[in-house]
């Protein structure tokens, strides 16, 4: 099975990558969202919006398969995710609050370990990705000696070499300086142009041309026994 769709940016695609049907999630006896249905098309950036505690992170974790406390249906390329977990995981990249960076390892070692389970990448490409995120000269410094923003940048370097069509990015703009934010915005837009789909949560004022919005938390309903 191998499709190679690279649609024009903004061009309507008939086949959604990810579909959620009637998602409902309950946390601490409170319904975070119910009857939530949406489709993620290739070539789009979607911003998940909502106040603190409205379930943005939970939604992304549910989509990634890290949270099981939900009901409804999730489909990947038209068929249920459960039946093709491995294919889905290979095609999805998730970056969470915790960047997945080992403080004792260097950026290069961290990036190598993170890519090792996905696809073989040469050390040269890894270094280039690190340089691309402004970490030139820090490749061999243990990450615990780097600043919070630099550590986030190590995780973001993955985006420069990621071939996964679906990106789920949770608060990726945290601790990134203004130049970095601009570059990241450009990268997300470029990703959509390349045919990738991006779902992003952020409190930063992200506005991209053609960006979709998913609004959560129109008053979380109190769960009643």
């Amino acid at each position: 099975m191998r499709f190679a769709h690279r649609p024009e940016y903004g061009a309507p695609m008939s086949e959604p990558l990810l579909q959620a049907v009637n998602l409902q999630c309950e946390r601490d006896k409170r319904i975070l969202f119910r009857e939530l249905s949406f489709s993620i098309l290739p070539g789009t950036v979607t911003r998940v919006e909502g106040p603190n505690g409205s379930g943005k992170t939970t939604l992304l974790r549910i989509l990634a398969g890290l949270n099981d406390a939900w009901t409804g249906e999730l489909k990947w390329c038209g068929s249920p995710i459960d039946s093709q977990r491995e294919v889905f995981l290979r095609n999805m990249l998730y970056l969470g609050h915790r960047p997945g960076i080992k403080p004792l390892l260097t950026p290069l070692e961290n990036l190598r370990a993170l890519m090792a389970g996905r696809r073989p990448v040469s050390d040269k490409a890894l270094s280039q990705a690190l340089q691309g995120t402004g970490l030139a000269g820090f490749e061999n410094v243990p990450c615990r000696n780097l600043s919070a923003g630099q550590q986030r940048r190590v995780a973001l370097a993955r985006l420069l070499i990621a071939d996964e069509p679906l990106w789920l990015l949770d608060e990726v703009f945290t601790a990134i300086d203004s130049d970095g934010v601009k570059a990241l915005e450009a990268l997300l837009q470029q990703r959509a142009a390349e045919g990738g789909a991006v779902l992003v949560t952020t409190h930063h004022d992200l506005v991209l041309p053609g960006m979709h919005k998913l609004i959560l938390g129109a008053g979380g309903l109190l769960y009643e026994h």
Partner: protein
Amino acid sequence: MNTEARPEARLASGSVGALAAMKAVFARDMKVAFRQRQDLLNPLLFFIMVVTLFPLGVSPEVSFLREAGAGILWVAALLSVLLSLDHLFRHDFDDGTLEQLVLQPQPLFLLILAKTLAHWMLTGLPLVLLTPVLGVMVHLDGNSIAVLCLTLLIGTPVLSLIGAIGAALTLGLRSAGVLLSLLIIPLYIPVLIFGTGTVAAAAEGAAVGAYVALMGAFLMLALTLAPFAAAAALKISLSNG
């Protein structure tokens, strides 16, 4: 950010093989451990201290030590593995690498098996290597020491594997230590009984083949079942985190 030479967004069907991914997980855990050597020494020092304190605290008599020595070493090894268990997933959980591990396309139980193997190489195996020295200290004879080493060599991986289930289950809890011990100790008891029983049988000159075979069966059982249980437990813990 420099965005030249970008990979295109396409659906991929193949990914890195499970064996290569396991190697990478194993290599990373070893590398992290050797960057933090004092953590490696803790279980070893604990092992040595418990074994050396027994003659001082109870009795330095040769007859007593010869009889109790194997048991003391086994209990000390068991406790020092237990002490190191909390580290198995805790750091990975805190820095987010565990999430990324769960999201790798390879079967999770294999990746956990690789992590557990690394844990055993860093805690169980050094204990086995130290055993001959401490065995001489508690006046065990050569044959008993050899059998003791063999039982620990088979038994400590079982301790790591069973421990991985407990460590995964208690990951989301704030005070995991006590609960982890309560969960795991009952499962360790059969291993302890057969481990010390084998050495006792050897000291009396009996054949130990059957005992060793039973311990081997424990190891096979743990190898085949524990990674699945630990993988399921990890998913539950992450789902609540």
